[in-house]
């Protein structure tokens, strides 16, 4: 049984520094595996996708940026609020030409600045437009849309566009636009994923964020625990390591057998690192338990010692595929 069979829009959020863009990109590859077509959308103007995939900055245009195992395709789009507003003006008022004149005056920027809710509804609206396009069976349709969303601290406000535009026009196209966005975001076809590290602060922020999203009746997906280091010691060994009671003589003789010289330097280094590692792992175990209490599916991704590059993304995507994300539907 694969996860989230009904979901087409995957929203990825997380505290700064947890690797939310990396996880979103790996998810886009995992979901594209076995012949699907996915699109990764960014909305913060950071060009994080381009940096990750090592391509030139993305324009406001859908571009193919990678292939996935089994013949899938990953596309990408950097949504810009100004461009989205011009799209919108064109769609509802046929104002494309006047729109570019307005832009030159700085008026488009002005409009999205004066009403932050307008900016958000335009950005989420673009993502939802791509989601819905699928149903119309157009050429450029996607099986899955992955949104690299703003960080956990702002995610509920960002997605809860109905609340956002409530101070704006009560009737008219913006209101109905927001309603149609909400119809997608608050539905079964959306899942909001939270990215975290196994440290106290990000875990707390994740739990707070999950509660907020739930309070706003927004659909939660999974928790992605990023950059974990595999525990090298079991619970009993960790206890001994912290107490400084690992069997030193045995370790020395093992080192000799391994072909190295058991110098005091090496043995001390190994014992210090073992205690350090044990303390860290114990903390991670506690934090993981706190996350587990939330009852959401949890996916653990390793820290790649070589750092994140294109190869690293495929490695993370393969782990997701093996954890029953994406693939056949």
């Amino acid at each position: 049984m694969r996860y989230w069979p009904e979901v087409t829009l995957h929203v990825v959020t997380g505290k700064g520094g947890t690797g939310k863009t990396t996880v979103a990109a790996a998810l886009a590859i995992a979901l594209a595996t076995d012949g699907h077509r996915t699109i990764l959308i960014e909305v913060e103007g950071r060009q994080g996708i381009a940096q990750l995939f090592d391509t030139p900055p993305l324009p406001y245009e859908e571009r193919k940026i990678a292939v996935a195992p089994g013949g899938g395709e990953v596309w990408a789009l950097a949504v810009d609020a100004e461009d989205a507003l011009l799209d919108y003006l064109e769609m509802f008022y046929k104002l494309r030409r006047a729109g570019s004149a307005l832009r030159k005056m700085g008026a488009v920027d002005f409009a999205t600045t004066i009403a932050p809710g307008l900016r958000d509804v335009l950005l989420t609206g673009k993502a939802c437009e791509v989601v819905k396009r699928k149903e119309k069976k157009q050429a450029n349709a996607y099986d899955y849309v992955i949104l690299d969303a703003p960080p956990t601290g702002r995610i509920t406000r960002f997605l809860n566009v109905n609340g956002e535009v409530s101070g704006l026009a009560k009737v008219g196209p913006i209101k109905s636009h927001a309603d149609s966005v909400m119809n997608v975001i608050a539905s079964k076809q959306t899942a909001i994923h939270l990215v975290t590290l196994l440290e106290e602060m990000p875990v707390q922020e994740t739990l707070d964020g999950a509660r907020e999203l739930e309070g706003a009746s927004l659909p939660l997906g999974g928790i992605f625990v990023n950059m974990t280091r595999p525990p090298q010691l079991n619970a009993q060994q960790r206890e001994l390591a912290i107490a400084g009671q690992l069997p030193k003589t045995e370790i020395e003789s093992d080192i000799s057998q391994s072909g190295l010289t058991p110098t005091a330097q090496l043995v001390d280094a190994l014992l210090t690192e073992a205690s350090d590692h044990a303390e860290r792992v114990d903390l991670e175990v506690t934090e993981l338990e706190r996350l587990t209490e939330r009852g959401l599916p949890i996916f653990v991704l390793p820290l790649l010692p070589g750092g994140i590059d294109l190869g690293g993304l495929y490695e993370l995507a393969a782990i997701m595929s093996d954890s029953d994300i994406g693939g056949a539907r």
Partner: protein
Amino acid sequence: MTLDIDAILTNPDKHIIVCTGSGGVGKTTTAAALGVRAAELGRNVCVLTIDPARRLAQAMGLTELDNTPRPVAGISNGSLSAMMLDMKRTFDEVVESHSDPERAQKILSNPFYQVLSSSFAGTQEYMAMEKLGQLRADASQWDLIIVDTPPSRNALDFLDAPARLGSFLDGRLIRIITAPARGAGRGIGRLAALGFGIFTNVLSKLLGAQVLADVGNFVADIDTTFGGFRERADATYALLKDSGTEFIVVATAERDALREAAFFVERLNQDCMPLGGLILNRVQEVPETGLTHDQVLAAAQKLTAEGSGPLTAALLELHAERMEIKQRQKHLAVRFTAAHPTVSVQPVPIMPHDVHDLAGLREIGAALANQKITW
């Protein structure tokens, strides 16, 4: 070149330290640790944090977000106060102190003001600067203010957002939509006037006429009492260029964080702002054993292949993994230094535990000042 943090903290001519960097690199923790250390070196310190995690606030004994500096107990030598910025309250106070009660009430209840003071892009940065200016003006209480910067999309926002917001609020467009008839008649030319006609028309359609009316009322009310937003932003910006200020850029040894740090360093240089140095958080320390990564890994693999000494094999693998992480981090740090040779860098080792109390902050403070760190 290493960074001598204690020399900065004890320099009596330094009155403001700004900690900046991209999100998630440990800025707030660094600011708090610097505060504790400076206070225990004899300074009277106020730490202004923007959005501290609950545990960190508790570590400093802060229990509520009340926008006022609170003394931190348990500090010897100097003194430490800490506060969390409440941007809305700060904005409200600015309005109240610059207008009579009746007008202040009118502004505070204006729906546009409520959006502006609570969820506007740039307001947090603007109010952080405003608060910094206020604290600095109260020089009798503190001789060193350490400020953490908001978790912006990018680190430069802290420098740019206040001026951008100031220009916006003082700008031509906001004045024109608030008085379209007057604006269209004067000076801006017929063609542009035509454009503005479409503009206000479109805005009304998008936002509703009420929003524009609220903006208009706000501008009219604020105009007579408040003076220029831009001017205020510029005044605090000047404070940042003062020789009494020092910027500390915080990053981790990761590509993205160092890229942000590089942008910021370049910007400070360009604007002639005083840069103390770069703090590289969460670096992997590895004790020197005289062995290479490959030797250690090969030894671990030999044990595993022979099925003997699983514990030792695990320890060797752990050691090899840490060597690899350190190698990559050093590579990134060396590249940063190659591009920015004048920036002093202080590596701070990753701690096996999180910060819960003053002792934890002290420990980080000591690591920040440790000139002999072997990395």
